[in-house]
């Protein structure tokens, strides 16, 4: 866990950390979808409290449903399984473990102790950037 009393989940949109939901919004082992700028992002929390943020777009079905997948592990790799056709994706890198396709975009995500009002998303600044800015999260 990145912080002792997590209250807010934040995503780095390439320019700055954006609060996207309350820590309590996340059920361990599941995710939610959030809107950051024009992007739909799936945010998950695993049973140990680790946070992940990947593209909500399921490349196989074309539907924006990755946030509704089940979290688990494949060997040592933490994964999310697409709810549509059940392919597994590495939560850390967005890489699909079942078929060779381009990795899903991932975003840096963290918990902070300051509370945010997740019901007022319009107050959150939204940065228009297409940079993945994921260097802190991507593992190679």
């Amino acid at each position, binding site marked *: 866990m990145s912080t002792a009393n997590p209250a807010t989940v934040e995503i780095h949109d390439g320019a700055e950390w954006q609060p996207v939901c309350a820590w309590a919004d996340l*059920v361990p082992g599941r995710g*939610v979808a959030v809107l950051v700028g024009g992007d739909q992002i799936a945010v998950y929390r695993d049973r140990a409290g680790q946070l992940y943020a990947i593209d909500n777009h399921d490349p196989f079905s074309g539907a924006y449903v990755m946030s509704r997948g*089940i*979290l688990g592990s494949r060997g040592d790799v933490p994964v999310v399984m697409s709810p*549509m056709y059940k392919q597994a994706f590495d939560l850390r890198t967005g890489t699909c473990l079942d078929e060779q396709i381009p990795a899903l975009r991932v975003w840096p995500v963290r918990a902070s102790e300051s509370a945010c009002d997740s019901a007022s998303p319009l107050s959150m600044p939204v940065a228009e950037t297409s940079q993945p800015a994921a260097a802190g999260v991507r593992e190679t």
Partner: protein
Amino acid sequence: MTPKPARKELVLVGHGMVGQRFLEALFEQPSAAATWRVTVLAEEPRAAYDRVQLSSWFNGTSADELSMCPQEFLDEHGIELRCSEPAAKVDRGARIVTTASGERLPYDALVLATGSYPFVPPVPGHDADGCHVYRTIEDLEGIRADAKGARVGAVVGGGLLGLEAAGALIALGLETHVVEFAPRLMALQVDDGGGDVLRRKIEDMGVRVHTGAGTQRIDTGDDGRVRSMALSDGSEIEADLVIFSAGVRPRDQLARDCGLPVGERGGIVVNEQCRTEDPHVWAIGECAQTVDGRVYGLVAPGYAMAEAAARELADGEGSFTGADTSTKLKLLGVDVASFGDAHGAAEGALDVVYANSRAGVYKKLVIGADGALLGGVLVGDTESYAVLRPLAASGTPLPAPPEQLVLPAGSGAPAGPIALPDEAVVCSCHNVSKGAIKAAVHENGCASVPEVKKCTKAGTGCGSCVKLMSTIVTDELAASGVEVSTALCEHFPHTRAELYEIIQVKGITDFSRVLAEHGTGEGCDICKPTVGSILASLGGGHILAGEQAALQDTNDHFLANLQRNGSYSVVPRVPGGEITPEGLIVIGEIARDFGLYTKITGGQRIDLFGARVDQLPPIWKRLVEAGFESGHAYGKALRTVKSCVGETWCRYGVQDSVGLAIELELRYRGLRAPHKLKSAVSGCARECAEAQSKDFGIIATSTGWNLYVGGNGGMTPRHADLLAADLDRETLIRTIDRFLMFYIRTADRLERTAPWLERLEGGLDHLREVVMDDSLGICEDLDELMGRHIETYEDEWAATLADPDRVRRFVSFANAPGTPDPTVRFAPERDQIRPARPGELVAGPALEVRTR
């Protein structure tokens, strides 16, 4: 292009089980299709059917279900089948068969498979109205029609078929007598000791047995109908229906008329290749006298002859020199088996007998002078038949002292299949040896019983050997070091059934503990929903409560069905398919107001498509207010209990099928299972609700309900098996309760009841013993579990709406709860919506779809 050589003409006379097997075996030979053009002359009005299972017709199995010859088979091989067109004459010189209607068919090969006819003793009155034989479906129809006005029925003949006929009379509700000339029942198969046990069991069922008595006369009333019969012991039976079942005779008249030699006691004489004296004429099955001088009246030797003749005709080599007449069957609920030299005819043979009259068990083994097993008789407990019969056939020394082989399980060492020599025939229907099964595993790479079945055909006949076969397959796989992985997934080394037991016994209520104590890693989309389902089956409360929410597939998680574009469909429960006009209006209004696509489902309800996640709670708020509940279309759970309209409205119905369907659907709604469960109730034998294609289906009879289980539509359709007949409502429901709970407890993940039942050791009989006779002593548990399910049922949607925390999850975006997902888009089609295709230019989610 070279012209195809003209095909030769093959005429098959007779389309019974053996005739059909001949056709199958012929076209299994690669050269057959190019060589032969086949015409079949059948006397009966229908294609071949399973005469062995004839009696099941009285328990609701239709003539269609008994059929063994699908139209596709005939079409595929270009076989011309002429029903109701028997052969009348054979001109061997000109090689022409003349049919009853006068048509003349030339042949290059003629195969006679005319079977046999029932022997009717020529006693006075034998042809009176009310006298029947028991051979064809038409015979059965006649018996059923006559039984309507009858009170007492008598069967002449206490052999295998006679007892079958007696079972039919009991099923028809008649007081039943069996008259047997020999001093015991089934004189051919069993000895006096076995006959005694059999008689006692059959008398317990209310059948009056008269042995050592011949039929002298049948007396008729003024109307010319049977009134009574006089027996040779001076007694008289008042009977108004008589069935003759005193043996069969080969139908060899056609051969006699054209001068082919027949045996002294009938039967067309054939050689090892099943060919008659005439090189163009073959004879197979019950009409033939084989090279060992016998006429076989069993289906397995008939099949063997059919296969031999088929191989000969396809330029191969076939031979039939004699067959094993071992039999194992269940007559009137009594298990009877006889194998090898059952009567100890061999010189120096000695008996080892175990008899327990109280338990109704009799077992006799015939041991040869050299200590080898020669044959035996088993009545009341035929469990060891599968091992003993091949042992007797192999002639190898016994693996254990003979007394241990007849003692009840637990008191002696059981004879395992390892003790069988390779040449021992395991499947006698298809003549497959233990060696062939081993070869299928080691050489053909078969790694499961279904694969071995497919490869060798073993176990696809009567099925009595499947249990033995699966033991052999498992042993062989283990011996060759093949790990038979039954693990659920990489996180659990257990099967679903094992996990169920673990969770139940330890009283575990959350996934974390199961994983910590019995698994590894973080779980996956296989084990998490499986554990979620087990917890739900064991009464673990709402499926979205606490940690359970994280285990559910997206369908269960949102209590709706995910569709291809990320939208969901909604199905309210409509128990039994009965819905009021007001209910229809509410559903219609909701669909209209939310712009949903509506379609009637196969389960007699209405599916509403195109709802976004954030629309699900408001849609359900209105449905719940109107009295609707979740239909569990999203869960591995009971879906619907379909029904026909039943006796309330239908001219033909005999019971209230809608009432029962509603009761069952309300009883089992929400029941989580290894896979979805479907059911149906039909109000009469016309079966308009298609109950036999369901996991459990019920068909009304005039006196109760027939319960069918293990049916399946879908990719591999399977007709359900009759588990029990003529049940009263209470017994019916109790039996379904236990069937469902036993399935939930023992099935694999995503295993429907059909494959589960096929895999279940001991099959339908075992299932019946477990749920009706409580052979495992678990019925109390099963009943309690079902009781708990019914008690704790709550509508998942009503409960979800009542909990603001759960409702809060139904948003498209956690940081923008009021924003609909802009990617869920629809296009108009046939006055409704459909998901927009990629790149299609359409309106957004606010699309106006009401085009009229």
